[in-house]
């Protein structure tokens, strides 16, 4: 029983982070149909931004967090505006855009290594402590990470469903022709979702950096978890993507019960195969063909 509660706690902590990553990838992928693997570079830049501000410049961790989010948003917008937008305008195929994204992912990580060197970077200084909640043990940082991730997803969900701009994003996502007809500037919406989605990834990267370390290829695994979360939960809505992230976190944590450590990815892969075969639209089907 105690072990179960502990696993649930870890599942929530992991799941919230993966849900944040899935929601961030979903926003970009569902709205612009870009399989944006270069998201991993955005993520790593955000990690290093925290290092530069909080360690190299010696400023506070709060400024580091701010720098992570802002630099991620800037990188995401820049990739869309400089690279993807001209390619879309020229009618490039989905495959060429994906290959260009791969090029950015590879070159970006290598460039970070050239700038900051191959050694990992730590950002210490978070006043961490272990919390004992009944029989469950978690760290303060884990709680904060999970809370910020969940809160961010909720805020983005509110933004998408409640605001004028959020509705315009849904409009572009579900009916681009009609969106153009009512005068929604589709390319601006595209840059906007790259900005928001990247900022979300930047937040996740900040927490990873202060919990562990920053290194050039730190973005690959989180982006993969985000991608899997999106397809697992459902490409039709942000709720589906976030759900997928949570399911992923719980799968990985609970697989520890019967698989040796780190091998939960076997279970994840098996579940993914089943979903692609039997429920290609994901676990959460979206309402009214959204």
């Amino acid at each position: 029983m105690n072990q179960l509660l502990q696993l649930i706690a870890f599942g929530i902590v992991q799941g919230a982070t993966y849900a944040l990553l899935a929601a961030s990838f979903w926003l970009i992928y569902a709205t612009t149909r870009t399989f944006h693997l270069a998201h991993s570079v955005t993520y790593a830049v955000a990690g290093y931004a925290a290092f530069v501000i909080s360690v190299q410049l010696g400023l506070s961790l709060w400024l580091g967090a701010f720098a992570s989010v802002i630099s991620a948003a800037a990188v995401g917008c820049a990739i869309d505006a400089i690279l993807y937008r001209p390619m879309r305008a020229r009618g490039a195929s989905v495959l060429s855009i994906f290959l260009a994204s791969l090029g950015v992912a590879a070159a970006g990580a290598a460039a970070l290594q050239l700038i900051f060197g191959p050694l990992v970077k730590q950002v210490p200084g978070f006043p961490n402590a272990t919390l004992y909640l009944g029989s469950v043990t978690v760290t303060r940082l884990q709680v904060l990470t999970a809370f910020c991730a969940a809160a961010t997803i909720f805020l983005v969900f509110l933004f998408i469903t409640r605001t004028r701009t959020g509705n315009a994003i849904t409009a572009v996502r579900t009916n681009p022709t009609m969106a153009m007809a009512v005068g929604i500037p589709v390319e601006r919406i595209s840059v906007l979702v790259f900005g928001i989605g990247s900022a979300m990834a930047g937040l996740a990267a900040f927490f990873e950096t202060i919990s562990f370390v920053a290194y050039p290829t730190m973005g690959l695994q989180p982006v993969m978890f985000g991608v899997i979360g999106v397809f697992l939960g459902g490409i039709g809505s942000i709720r589906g993507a976030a759900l997928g992230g949570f399911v992923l976190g719980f799968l990985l944590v609970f697989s520890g019960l019967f698989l040796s450590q780190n091998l939960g990815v076997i279970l994840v892969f098996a579940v993914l195969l089943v979903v692609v075969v039997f429920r290609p639209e994901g676990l959460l089907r979206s309402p009214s063909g959204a």
Partner: protein
Amino acid sequence: MGGSYIADLANQITFLVALAVSLNLLLGFAGQMSMATAAFYGLGAYTCAIMTAQGMTLTGAAVIGPGWPFLGGLASAIVVSFVGGLVVAAPAARRVRGDYLILLTLAFHFLVVTIASSWVGLTGGPNGIVVPPIGFFGYEINTTDQAFWFLLAWAAFVSLVCWWIGRSPFGRLLRGIREDEIAIQALGKRTIAPKSLAFAMTAAMAGATGAISAAYMQFVAPTTYSLDLAILVAACVALGGPGNILGSVVAAIVIGALRPILENVPSLSSDSAVPWQTVIYGSILVAGMVFRPRGLLPEGLIAMRRFPREAISAVPRVVQATLLKTVGERDQPALAKSSVPNPMIASPIVRVRNLSKSFGGLQAVKDVSFDLHPGEIVALIGPNGAGKSTIFNLMTGAIRPDQGEVTLHGQSLAGADPCAVARSGMARYFQHVRILPGLSALNNVAIGVPRQAGENLAMTFLAPMRVARGEAEVRAEALRQLENVGIAPHANRTAQDLAFGQQKLVAFARLLATGAQVLLLDEPTSGVDPQAADQIIALVRTLAQSGKSICIVEHSLHVVSELADRILFMNAGAIMAEGTVEAITTRPDLVDLYFGT
């Protein structure tokens, strides 16, 4: 391992060449993207390592494998990666969109990397496994120089296999799938199996290369099989030109030579050579996709086997004459169209019975029944949204009816998908043509020929002579059909370079190549100039005279009145009237339905 440094550099490049060429089979020919190149390379390497390792691992534990010789390890690597490829690809191949394959290959990559670094008992974890050297029939390769010729031969062999597949009918099928999978299915070709097979072949070749590399390095460790390697290989393919084997070879040699060159730049530390190489090929990949998406050596430069020029210039001009003649007959009374005296006497080929279909609350098709007879041209007309296209979709199995059924030659088509329907002899001509833009006109048509021996990959290797003979017949048939529609002189041109009217004629030739007895034509003349329209009209009439049953949906009443023996007038999903052109166009109530009241 001893031997010269230069030979080692060359050997590393041969691995890159083999990987790039095998990925080209998938990315270039089939148009599918895999992120799992490094994963299958690693899967093969680890399989070989586990099966051949002897004695103790680096950590001191006893190895768990059977200690087979190298060739056994290589064979097991090929089998494991081939099967692994099928497991990854088969679910994704069911979907037309390539995103699912990217997803699954990406997940598979992490699966392999995680197992390699975490399952210590099997893989040695981060410490890796020591692998015995390459050796067969008592001969062992122990220096880089000895290995070079073997590895060069392997890379050449893989390139030849891919090149052979690429120019085979199976390769043509893959290219067709890349260009337009729906169109290929509508020609009666299965697409899931070829896609999965192409993926599994790519995986097997990467796995075999991995096994050889493991035995060459005499060591495997997880860091070798990174996503960067997968991207590096994809960059070689994309830059060399998807679909161009030679391009991949050249690109792999150039990009592979970057690292040793950078390592010898004095101002760079040896640590930064690899990231610099990555920055350079990553940037080249980005620039290539922006400025030259078809690669530096596009497929068209070294196209598939072309038809000899002489053969084309020798095309008899009879066709042109026939066409002119039929066009000339246009002024004759509309009734004398079909050569079959009274189609109603012959028994119908197609029976449509009580078809109904609703989408949501909208009843798109209501209880529709009609017959098609041999040699007859039936036109479906009616205002937009009357359900005409839905009827075609129901007849070809693209959507399932709620009620009713279609029989062809007395056989029910219930439950058949478009591929099965096309195979049983009812083929569809798409309104938006769905030409295969990157293929030559001749290949566009050749792909329509049914039951080609060479579309079976095994036959391509096991019975090459039979495949070659079959292919000669297919090409002759394709050329004959191009002659039929009067554009044989353009046989070798890429379809996307043809005028729209010519593309429509190519699509017609392709439709005829399927040998289908029943032709469903969706707006055959829309979007072409009047001259091309006349050509198409004449063609359709000739087809009916040769005994085909033709059903057309056409909004141009000019075309309908030129062609149709019988008109079915549809409105709001139901057939309102049936009769000759004159009977329909003069009925005031139908005029009201068509043009409103």
